[in-house]
C-alpha cells in the first residue's frame, strides 16, 4: 500500500473508525502519513476552537403557541366595564371567539372517509360553538370553550381520544362557573385539570348529551368533513369585507423588527361592537389590546389591509392577520410586556369590553 491509497484511511482513523490491517501497517511506518494525520487532528482542534468563539450562550427567547383549536380566556377588566348584560356578553364573546357556522366546509357523508369531526356544542344564546377535531392530526384534537347553559356558565374541554369506524371517542371535562359573574372571575384552561374526564363514544349525525354536575347537560351534534376549515371560515360572519365596526384578527403572527416573536395559529377574534377590543397574549412576549377607538396610554398604529403596524419602545411591530383587519386605517394598541399568563398557557386571545380603557369623548374632541 502506498500513501495515496492509505490517505482515506488516515482520515477514517481520525474519526475513530477501524481500518484494514494493510492500511494500519503502512500508516504505522510512514512518516508522511503520520504527518497527514497530525494535520487532520490539528485542523479538527482548530475548528472546535473557532466554534467555541461562535457559540452564543443563550438562544433568543421565542414563544411557541399552544396548539388549541380555540384559545379564549376572558380578561378581568372586561367584566368590570361592560355595559351590556354580562350573560349576553359571554354569548357574544364565544360566538365570535369560538368557531361558528358551517359555511365553506366541505362536508362528507356520515360513515364515509372524512378525517375531521366538526362538533357543534349548543348554548343558551347564540349559535352553537363549533369545534373541529381531527382524527389524524395530533395537534388538532383539543377544543375548549365557555358558554351559557340554562342558568349557568359552563366551561368545557373536549379531547378526541380515538376513532372506531364512523364513530369517535371523546374525553370531556366540564364544570360550572358561578353566576352572577364577579369582577374577579377568570376562565383558565387549568380549571379543567381539576375535573374528572368522562369518555363518550359519539356517532356524528346523532346527538350526544354530556352530564355536567350542577347544570343542564351539554348537547352536541357533529358531522364528518374532509379537512380542518381555515380560521374564521366557520364563523357566521365569514364575508371577506369587514363590517363598519368590525376589528378582525385571524390566526395572527407578530413580528418585532421583522423577526417573528409570536404566532397565534388558528386563533380567531372578531370585535364587532363599539367599546370592544381584541386582546392577544403570549408567554414571554406580553399582552396586546387592539381597538378602533383611542385608548388611554395607547399607541396609535396604522392598518394596512391585513397588517397592523405600530412602534413601541424603539421597536417596530407588524401584526399579520389572515384577513383584512378593519375598514379604516386607524387603530390603537396597549402593550403590556410584563403581563404573565396565569395558568401555564402559552397563548390566548379574546374579545373584551374596553369602555374603561377608552379616552373620554371630551378628550378626543
Amino acid at each position, binding site marked *: 500500500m502506498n500513501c495515496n491509497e492509505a490517505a482515506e484511511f488516515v482520515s*477514517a482513523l481520525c474519526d475513530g473508525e477501524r481500518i484494514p490491517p494493510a492500511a494500519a501497517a503502512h500508516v504505522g511506518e510512514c512518516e508522511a502519513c503520520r504527518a497527514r494525520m497530525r494535520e487532520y487532528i490539528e485542523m479538527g482542534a482548530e475548528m472546535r476552537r473557532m466554534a467555541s468563539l461562535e457559540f452564543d450562550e443563550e438562544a433568543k427567547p421565542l414563544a411557541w403557541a399552544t396548539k388549541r383549536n380555540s384559545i379564549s380566556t376572558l380578561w378581568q377588566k372586561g367584566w368590570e366595564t361592560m355595559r351590556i348584560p354580562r350573560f349576553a356578553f359571554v354569548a357574544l364573546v364565544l360566538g365570535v371567539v369560538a368557531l361558528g357556522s358551517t359555511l365553506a366546509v366541505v362536508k362528507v357523508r356520515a360513515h364515509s372517509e372524512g378525517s375531521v369531526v366538526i362538533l357543534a356544542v349548543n348554548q343558551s344564546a347564540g349559535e352553537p360553538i363549533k369545534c373541529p377535531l381531527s382524527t389524524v392530526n*395530533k395537534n388538532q384534537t383539543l377544543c375548549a370553550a365557555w358558554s351559557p347553559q340554562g342558568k349557568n356558565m359552563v366551561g368545557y374541554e373536549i379531547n378526541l381520544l380515538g376513532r372506531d369506524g364512523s364513530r369517535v371517542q371523546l374525553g370531556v371535562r366540564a364544570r360550572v362557573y358561578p353566576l352572577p359573574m364577579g369582577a374577579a372571575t377568570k376562565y383558565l384552561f387549568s380549571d379543567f385539570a381539576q375535573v374528572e374526564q368522562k369518555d363518550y363514544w359519539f356517532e356524528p349525525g346523532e346527538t350526544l348529551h354530556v352530564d355536567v354536575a350542577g347544570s343542564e347537560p351539554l348537547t352536541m351534534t357533529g358531522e364528518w368533513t374532509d379537512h380542518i376549515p381555515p380560521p374564521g371560515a366557520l364563523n357566521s360572519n365569514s364575508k371577506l369585507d369587514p363590517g363598519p365596526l368590525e376589528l378582525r384578527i385571524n390566526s395572527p403572527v407578530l413580528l418585532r423588527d421583522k423577526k417573528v416573536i409570536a404566532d397565534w395559529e388558528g386563533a380567531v377574534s372578531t370585535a364587532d361592537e363599539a367599546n370592544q377590543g381584541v386582546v392577544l397574549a403570549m408567554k414571554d412576549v406580553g399582552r396586546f389590546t387592539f381597538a378602533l377607538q383611542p385608548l388611554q396610554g395607547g399607541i396609535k398604529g396604522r392598518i394596512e389591509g391585513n397588517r397592523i403596524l405600530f412602534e413601541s419602545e424603539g421597536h417596530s411591530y407588524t401584526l399579520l392577520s389572515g384577513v383584512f383587519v378593519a375598514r379604516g386605517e386607524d387603530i390603537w394598541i396597549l402593550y403590556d410586556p410584563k403581563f404573565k399568563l396565569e395558568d401555564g398557557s402559552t397563548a390566548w386571545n379574546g374579545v373584551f369590553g374596553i369602555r374603561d380603557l377608552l379616552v373620554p369623548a371630551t378628550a378626543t374632541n
Partner: protein
Amino acid sequence: MADDQEIWKKITQGDAQVFDAFYRETAPRLQAFLRQIVGSCEAAEDVAQETYIQIWKQPNGYQPERGSLRGYLYGIGRKRAADWWRKQTPSAEETEEKTEPSRAENSSVMGDALKRLPEEQRSLLWLREVEGQSYAELAAILDIPVGTVRSRLFAAREALRQVWQTGAQTSTRRSL
C-alpha cells in the same frame, strides 16, 4: 435532556414546554452551524428560527433509528439554509458577505479556509469535527449513503488542508 424518543413524542403532542427546552438547548449550536452555510449571523438566526417553526408546526420525519434528534434538526436546518440561498439575489449575496463576517473570522485562518470550501464539505467537516456526528448521522443529514461518508470526509479534509496550508503560509509571509 431526556431521551430523544421521549422528547420527540412530546413535541408531536404539542408540548410547548418541552419544545422550548429543546430549542434553548440546541439553538446556539444550530445557529453556529448555519452561520457556516449562510455566512452571516442575522441570516443564520432567521434560518434557525424557520427551522424550529417548521418542526413545531409540522413535527414529522424524525426516525430515531437513523440518528439523534440533534442530527435531524441539523438536516432540516441545512435544507432551510439551501432554501435561503435560493431566494438570495447575486447582489444580496455580495452584501451579506461584506457586511457581516462571522465573529471569529478576523482572527481565524481556519475561518477563511472553511469559507473557500464548497458548502457540502464545510457542513460535513463542521458536523463531524464540531458536532461529533457519526457516519450514519452524517449520511442522514446530508442525504448520502453511509458508505460515501468516509470518502467525502477525506475529500473535505484534503481540500481544507490545501487551503489551510496556503492561508497559513500567506499569513506567515505577511507577518515577516
